[in-house]
């Protein structure tokens, strides 16, 4: 563990915290452009966070301490996740503390706390949202694990930095197994981050909400933390996708500060491409009924399994 690695770790964690609201803002802009609307400013989500932090939080009378603790737990889990994923560099000291399976576990922990908090006050929408979120979660989690398994089999490691380094140093070529998993991963990303076609982040119709329904009772700094955590989750998923399927241009362990600085513009370009791609999918698809969502996620799981079989059978 060198000083440079620690610097990489700190830089990328802070970068994730700052870039996450911007990434959400850029996705909103892309979506607006694709829908022929005037786009809101890039910084709107960030301004929203600042505004919410300054407001006085209102907590329902029937809320238990768990309700107030949950935003901190969820936010903490997302920040920890951002520290594991190779966003700028692969020399992450924290990367040994949690591998890809533990990363999935961290996401699950965050989800469980969001759902428990949603059930805490005992409103109809909160429990409805919790039920749906857990349903989507238990379908998305095995698919995500299968995706991770493909990458682990290729690089014989479950640590994300090691996987990324291995994939980045391979000769450029098409891996059919990775192609299948990339499609599966895109589907899981849409489902896990409450995007169309599974959920709509911009909806104001309570009955169709999943993620937003769980946050209805939050306000002030608690809501800000929840929103920031959601933005971080989307950002994390984008970065996992980049790390697995486009792992070039990262600062490797001990490569020096110049590589770290050079990795920032590369990351920004890749993130812009991801945002554009995701918004295009969102613009082109319609929201599915809740009970069609399992089919969508089962398809993602099967694609990932196909990738796994291709890897085991053909070694490709």
């Amino acid at each position, binding site marked *: 563990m060198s000083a440079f690695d620690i610097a990489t770790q700190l830089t990328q964690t802070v970068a994730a915290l700052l870039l996450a609201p911007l990434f959400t803002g850029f996705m909103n802009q892309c979506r607006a452009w694709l829908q022929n609307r005037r786009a809101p400013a890039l910084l709107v989500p960030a301004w929203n966070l600042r505004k919410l932090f300054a407001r006085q939080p209102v907590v329902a009378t029937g809320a238990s301490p*768990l309700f107030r603790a949950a935003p901190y737990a969820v936010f903490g889990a997302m920040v920890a996740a951002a520290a594991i994923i190779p966003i700028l560099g692969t020399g992450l000291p924290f990367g040994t503390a949690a591998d890809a399976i533990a990363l999935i576990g961290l996401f699950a922990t965050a989800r469980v706390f969001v759902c428990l908090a949603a059930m*805490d*006050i005992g409103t109809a929408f909160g429990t409805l949202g919790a039920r749906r979120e857990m349903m989507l979660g238990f379908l998305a989690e*095995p698919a995500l694990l299968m995706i991770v398994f493909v990458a682990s089999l290729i690089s014989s490691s479950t640590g994300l930095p090691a996987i990324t380094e291995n994939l980045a140093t391979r000769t450029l070529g098409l891996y059919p197994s990775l192609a299948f998993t990339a499609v599966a991963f895109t589907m899981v990303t849409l489902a896990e981050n409450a995007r169309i076609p599974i959920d709509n982040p911009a909806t104001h119709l309570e009955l169709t909400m999943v993620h937003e329904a769980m946050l209805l009772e939050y306000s002030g700094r608690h809501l800000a933390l929840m929103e920031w955590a959601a933005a971080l989750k989307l950002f994390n998923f984008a970065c996992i996708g980049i790390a697995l399927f486009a792992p070039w241009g990262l600062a490797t362990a001990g490569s020096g500060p110049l590589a770290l600085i050079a990795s920032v513009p590369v990351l920004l370009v890749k993130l812009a491409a991801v945002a554009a791609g995701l918004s295009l999918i969102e613009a082109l698809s319609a929201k599915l009924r809740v009970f069609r969502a399992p089919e969508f996620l089962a398809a993602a799981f099967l694609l990932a399994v196909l990738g796994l079989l291709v890897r085991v059978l053909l070694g490709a």
Partner: protein
Amino acid sequence: MTAPILKPLPLCLLAVALWGLIGLAGLLRPRSHRLAGALYPLGAACALLLAAAAARALALPLAPERAVLPVGLPDLPVHLRLDALAAGFLVLLGAAAAGISVFAAGYFGPHAPPGAASGAARAPQGTPPGLLCLQYHLFLASMALVFLADDAYAFMLAWEVMALSSYFLVTAEHGSASIRAAGFLYLLMAHVGALSILLAFGVMQGGTWRFTFDAMRGAHLAAWPASVAFLLALAGFGAKAGLVPLHVWLPEAHPAAPSPVSALMSGVMLKTAVYGMLRVSFDLLQASTWWWGLVPLTLGLLSALYGVVFAAVQTDMKRLLAWSSIENIGIIFTALGLALVFRGAGLPAAAALALVALLYHCLNHACMKSLVFLGTGAVLHATGERSLARLGGLIHRMPQVAWLTLVGALALAGLPPLNGFVSEWLLLQSFLFAHSVPHTFVNMLLPLGAGLIALAAALAAYVMVKFFGVVFLGRPRDAVAAQAHEAGPAERLGLAWLAALCLVLGVLPSAVIGVLDLIVHQLAGVALQGSQSRWWLLAPVPGRAASYSAVVMLAALAGVTLLTVLATRTAARPVRRARAWACGGTEPTARMQDTAEGFGQPIRHLFSDFFSITVEAPGPSDREPRYRVHVADRLWERLYLPAGSAVQRAADRLAFLQQGRIAAYLLYSFLTLVMLLALVL
């Protein structure tokens, strides 16, 4: 030299004997709750003594200690042996039983918290507390002897005492017909299983007609008798463990028992079956064939999925936990199957990893399932209610029980940094070796097993959110929940002990695996390398960058949370309390919340092939609309009812033998004797 009495085996026997004496002491005044309440803490002290003695046996990895007790039939003394495997399971028994016994002191004792409903936990026509105390301690002692037995007679004797004492504990509230029915089903399945185990021992003695385990180890069976013995043992121990399709008794019997007994049965008794399987397949049967592992692997995956799906649709909190036990047993048997496949395929390092996952999950499940079962006991004590439809909001009325139970629920959901995640992580890591198994199709299908395990784990999180959310969060759905009270100090102490164990097992996996390695070394002949290199980092697989450190993760989570709290505090304005917003509607009532049925609805919808569902929906003109869903187990209709009626038909056919005349029966005896003579001569 230590005195012979201070060696681990005599200390274990001392604990067992003391348990027997404590139980007998309960009979002095069988109707006294005060005496029973005083005896359970003594039982907890014995449990700690047992755990300490067994841990000492693990700390001094010497040759297995043996003893021969000259009791029982002439020429059939009781052989006892304390090796690493037995010691590991004795530690599990002692550690879990200590917490459960402390809780039981409050649950069965005189300081039952005041309140209108507290009498409901003690049925009027129940077993008197002194007798219950005897049965409870006999149950503990017999489980310890199962782990210590070194010959088939002693094993079966302890096994039967365990089955019978737990039968009486299950039917403690024998005033209710449904509890008697559950007890009968349990007794029946326990004996079908015991018969199968007995037959397995019969095959394993291999013509030597000596039933000590040493004789079986030296029997060198050919491939097919060994396979027969393995399958018989799997059927017998599987019936005890609740492996699908032999699971039907478990969701009936575990909820019927008083909560501390449910905790013991789910947490510890199921592990005796796992112990038996390990003993038979890794110790007594020296030879092995690679396909053996596929049977427990398939059944384990099926059980994991089946159990968790059924747990998700339950409306009774103890029944929900019982189904969740089937899921966990499924995970354990999956690990067993994987270890056997790896051993058969010549991958000892992978087999060792799967075995570590298995043992770790046994320990975890003993702690977390006992913890959650005791949590339901505290709720039951405070409200007298088991149905999820009438609970809710208990985190306000009994906060300490709620937070301690939350630890167990999160652990059962397999979330880091708690203990349930560690064993799942180890199991998934061992699944990554599956592609190197040298059998086509098997190596392709095995990674799918990892997908199923992940699905089961994710569903377990669903189940636990439902359990905790409906019982402890939200608004009270009924007056009994609104008037609940915090559990007594003994009950909270028992819960806290088990919650602390969950935390320790979750945060210090390397230290635990260092101890489990000794057991794995005894079973598989190899140990994991590199697991103890750094105490804070778990990196069990040499040559693969795979590591997990719960300490660092917990520290990072705590650090980030603390920083966030501090950062938001500086500009913070105090929280204002107001009515729930609920989208601007009227003040929400308890009936607006999701019910347990509602929360399980997506699962009912998605896995409808698993269930046979009867819905009772209200008509448009009903004055008092009622909506009820009944979910039943299809295997019961498809497998057990036909089997039951086949037995009935066979019995009807043979009824002509029953003439009711003494001459006919004498004739039968005579014919039997003649046949036996013809056979012998």
